[in-house]
């Protein structure tokens, strides 16, 4: 069959071979026949014919070389031979494959990830033209309504501008109520950040007019998660905070995910906000095509100066500025981690390449004699080179395939490991094909270069020398040896650097995990209970609600205790108020001294197992009618009362307005009834004490709420039953962010976990690679010196002296590597200093530990070949020549 020949040269070769054989045999037999006819005996006839014909195999070979696909056949032969020879050197093959796979896989994954996060964090077109406009001055980087409007009217550099406010709404009318991020934006927001919508339309003029503004654009992801990707979504009505809105569009997948927004609605500026001195808006702009940043900057500055001259009262000290909107929203500390990742993977790749080079050179050196023998038997230079080339290619291809696998696995792992909230966009980074190709090429080239070197060198060898010496150290291979020793030293030094860095971060991570939070975080579920300000008409209605929720939740099976609070533990302070003790003059209190204020259910303390130092916890006594009672934390007690007994004293705080329509204002004196030990309120790294005061929700009712539930058994069961139970109390109650307190604690150290895990793994890998390198060099030198060792043995050398012989060079390399490595480690410690928590950057314990580990591993790497050296019998050694 024709096609089989075309596609499978081997099949064609079979039939071709048969044909060739038949053709030549025919010739031979015809000759014999003629010889017989000429009167020879059968024997003579056959011999004469064979003599005249010559070497059958040689003729065949030459005919084959003429054939098409001859090179393919030869290649196939080479591949078979290479596979066989690699199979025989199993240790080398496995190590080289693993090195390639790790080198390729890790680098491709990590560089793809970095590229995705740092260099191309978004998918915006015209990203260079997108800017974020704000006022700088004594406050946040926001802009006031009138300044924004004046800039919008007077400038000629922006194609579009749009104001923007963050916000949250409770969505009802689509399944259970949910709390979702809904941003109010100017109608050109979509022109700036989004192309055409996937479904429906973008905002258009008129959408921002009162009465027509109840329209909303939802993001692709919200459309998928909340509406199941319903294609008929356009025109559907949903309730946002109890008001009906019409869905007019669904955004494209991608760019709209710049913020965690789920929905966009038109921004209506309320009358009371049309001022020049209240900076409250975010603003975005898109430069006109062809306008440079610099041109725009000049004009915006001019307008800003004019506004300051015209309205000196409102604008004193403020200045309108802008910067690239999408340039760089990755927080500095995350970038630090990513660069750390990049640096360490670079080191690993370096070690991997060095190791590969080392192994391949070692193998080439061992094969010097083989090459010499083959060259002596007539193997051509081209043929030898081709053969080594095939072997290197085969190895690279195998390593490449494995490497691609490792790359995809590590990228998936990275995507999962990097804490979501540390990256501005919740994005899943895809593998970058170009990066993958580049790394594959690089590793392939390394394998090729070092694989070919021995072939090129060996194919014009000093044959006599190589054959005579039987691979004993010749001057050429001595410089060889030196190069490989240098490689091993480099590997050891780099491994030390990585190990030290990894060790420091791991210790720091362990310290962070041990941080005392002052509360028991296990088996506690937390949830946000968002509620619009307007749902409760008066405080008594709110009080009723605040009592019912814990009652209902406590009744669920598996719940030990439930409590409401205005702020979760470990999650900041939420409400900060100035405070003073009764009688103390306010000016004695430093002006920036704040206390956190938590209104809680009385069960809050028991639930979190806060430690009571004095007096009592809050309880059922502390209701609306009773005297205001408060529990303060240790820090506040110390700060306000020093050594005096705080019980019975009073702390004065401004009253917090519970509902939007309630009057703000007067101060309340809270009587201290108890003192508790501090609970952690900030991150785990926060190590400064912060004063705090607790009151009951009954005495300080507030709709800003979080729920805490301590479960007896499986928290998942309770978690499932919660939303239903809450809607029983209030049909409009949404539940946001159901999380365990443990997981909150865990995400707080997510970055540290990432750093220490990744660096730890890299350090381990590099330790392994450097050990393999050392092992390779030592066992090669043992193999080389077999004869010498044998002779020494025969002359009566003790095993100790033979061991020393093999260990000496290994220990020397390790020693030099260690010294260089420690120098590098000190540098690494300096780089890491800011990332460490309660660990010194030159931590001697860590350094000592890793030096010990490296020495043990090095001894092991030397021991295996040394044992082989001990077993060398003088007889075998002498015969091995």
């Amino acid at each position, binding site marked *: 069959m024709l096609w089989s020949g075309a596609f499978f040269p081997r099949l064609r070769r079979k039939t071709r071979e048969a044909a060739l054989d038949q053709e030549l045999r025919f*010739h031979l037999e015809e*000759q014999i026949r003629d010889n017989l006819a000429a009167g020879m005996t059968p024997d003579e006839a056959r011999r004469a014919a064979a003599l*005249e014909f010559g070497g059958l195999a*040689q*003729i065949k070979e030459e*005919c084959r070389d003429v*054939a098409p696909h001859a090179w393919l056949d030869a290649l196939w032969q080479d591949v078979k031979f290479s596979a066989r020879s690699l199979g025989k050197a199993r240790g080398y093959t496995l190590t080289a494959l693993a090195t390639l796979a790790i080198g390729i896989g890790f680098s491709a994954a990590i560089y793809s990830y970095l590229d995705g996060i740092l260099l191309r964090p978004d998918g915006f077109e015209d990203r260079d033209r997108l800017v974020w406009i704000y006022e700088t001055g004594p406050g946040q980087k926001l802009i006031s309504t009138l300044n924004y409007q004046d800039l919008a009217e007077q400038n000629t550099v922006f194609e579009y501008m749009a104001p923007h406010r963050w916000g949250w709404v409770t969505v009802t009318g689509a399944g259970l109520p949910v709390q979702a991020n809904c941003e109010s934006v100017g109608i050109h927001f979509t022109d700036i950040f989004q192309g055409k919508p996937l479904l429906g339309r973008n905002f258009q003029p008129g959408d921002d007019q009162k009465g027509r503004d109840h329209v909303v654009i939802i993001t692709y992801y919200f459309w998928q998660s909340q509406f199941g990707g319903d294609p008929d979504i356009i025109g559907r009505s949903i309730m946002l905070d109890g008001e009906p809105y019409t869905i007019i569009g669904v955004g494209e997948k991608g760019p709209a995910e710049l913020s965690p927004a789920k929905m966009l609605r038109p921004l209506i500026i309320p009358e009371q906000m049309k001022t020049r001195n209240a900076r409250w808006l975010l603003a975005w702009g898109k430069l006109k095509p062809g306008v440079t940043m610099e041109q725009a900057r000049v004009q915006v500055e001019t307008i800003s100066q004019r506004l300051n001259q015209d309205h000196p009262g409102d604008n004193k000290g403020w200045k309108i500025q802008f910067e690239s909107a999408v340039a760089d929203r990755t927080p500095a500390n995350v970038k630090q981690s990513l660069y750390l990742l990049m640096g360490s993977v670079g080191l690993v790749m370096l070690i991997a390449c060095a190791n590969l080079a080392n192994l391949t050179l070692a193998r080439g050196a061992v094969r010097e004699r083989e090459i010499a023998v083959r060259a002596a038997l*007539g193997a051509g230079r081209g043929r030898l080179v081709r053969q080594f080339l095939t072997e290197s290619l085969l190895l690279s291809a195998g390593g490449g395939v494995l490497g691609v696998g490792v790359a995809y696995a590590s990228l998936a792992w990275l995507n999962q490991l990097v804490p979501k909230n540390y990256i501005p966009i919740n994005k899943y980074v895809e593998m970058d094909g170009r990066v993958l190709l580049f790394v594959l090429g690089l590793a392939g080239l390394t394998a090729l270069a070092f694989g070919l070197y021995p072939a090129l060198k060996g194919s014009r060898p000093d044959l006599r020398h190589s054959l005579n010496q039987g691979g004993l150290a010749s001057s050429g291979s001595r410089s060889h040896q030196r190069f490989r020793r240098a490689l091993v030293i480099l590997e050891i030094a780099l491994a030390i650097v990585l190990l030290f860095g990894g060790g420091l971060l791991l210790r720091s991570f362990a310290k962070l995990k041990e941080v005392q939070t002052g509360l028991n975080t296990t088996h506690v579920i937390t949830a946000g209970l968002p509620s619009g300000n307007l749902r409760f008409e008066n405080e008594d209605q709110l009080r009723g609600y605040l009592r019912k929720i814990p009652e209902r939740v406590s009744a669920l099976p598996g719940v030990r205790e439930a409590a409401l609070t205005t702020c979760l533990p470990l999650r900041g302070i939420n409400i900060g108020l100035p405070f003073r003790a009764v009688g103390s003059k306010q000016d004695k209190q430093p002006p920036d001294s704040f206390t956190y204020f938590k209104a809680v259910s009385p069960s809050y303390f028991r639930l979190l197992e806060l430690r009571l130092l004095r007096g009592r916890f809050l309880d059922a006594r502390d209701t609306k009618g009773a005297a205001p009672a408060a529990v303060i934390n240790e820090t506040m007690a110390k700060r306000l009362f020093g050594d005096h007994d705080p019980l019975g004293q009073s702390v004065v705080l401004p009253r917090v307005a519970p509902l939007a329509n309630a009057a703000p204002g007067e101060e309340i004196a809270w009587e201290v009834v108890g003192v508790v030990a501090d609970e952690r309120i900030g991150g785990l790294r926060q190590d400064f004490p912060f004063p705090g005061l607790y009151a009951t929700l009954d005495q300080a009712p507030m709709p800003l709420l979080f729920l805490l539930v301590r479960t007896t058994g499986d928290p998942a069961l309770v978690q499932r039953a919660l939303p239903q139970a809450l809607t029983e109390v209030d049909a409009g109650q949404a539940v946001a962010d159901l999380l365990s307190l443990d997981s909150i604690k865990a995400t707080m150290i997510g970055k540290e976990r990432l750093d220490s895990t990744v660096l730890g793994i890299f350090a381990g890998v590099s330790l392994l690679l450097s050990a393999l390198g050392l092992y390779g060099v030592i066992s090669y030198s043992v193999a080389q010196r077999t004869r010498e060792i044998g002779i020494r043995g025969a002359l009566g050398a003790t095993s100790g002296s033979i061991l020393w012989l093999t260990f000496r060079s290994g220990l020397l390399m390790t020693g030099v590597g260690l010294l260089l490595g420690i120098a590098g480690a000190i540098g690494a410690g300096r780089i890491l200093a800011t990332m460490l928590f309660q660990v010194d950057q030159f931590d001697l314990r860590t350094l000592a530990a890793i030096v010990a580990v490296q020495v043990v591993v090095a001894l092991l790497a030397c021991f295996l070949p040394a044992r082989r050296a001990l077993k060398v019998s003088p007889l075998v050694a002498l015969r091995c020549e």
Partner: protein
Amino acid sequence: MSSPKSDLLQGTLDMLILKVVAPGAIHGYAISKRLRQISQDVLQIQQGSLYPALHRLEERKWLQAEWKDAESGREAKFYRLTAAGRKQLEVETSNWERLSGAVAQVMRTHEA
């Protein structure tokens, strides 16, 4: 690696083969016999050169091969000239004539 080379220049052997094949389909053994007969045993073509040459010419599409029964009744590989082969033969023949004419000229001049 070294192969037994015929004393003939390679191009010359190719030309001779094409010439012998030109009259009609003929198998390898017959070609070698014919070459010897025509040259009255002066040209000893070794099989080591003949068969690779045949395969090479076939590869260049100057010869075309088919399997047929020989006089002896056994199946043999017969070679025939293709159109391209015929053209090649003409080119080589005229080249050869020019060359040999020139060589003869030189030899005569030298003698004189």
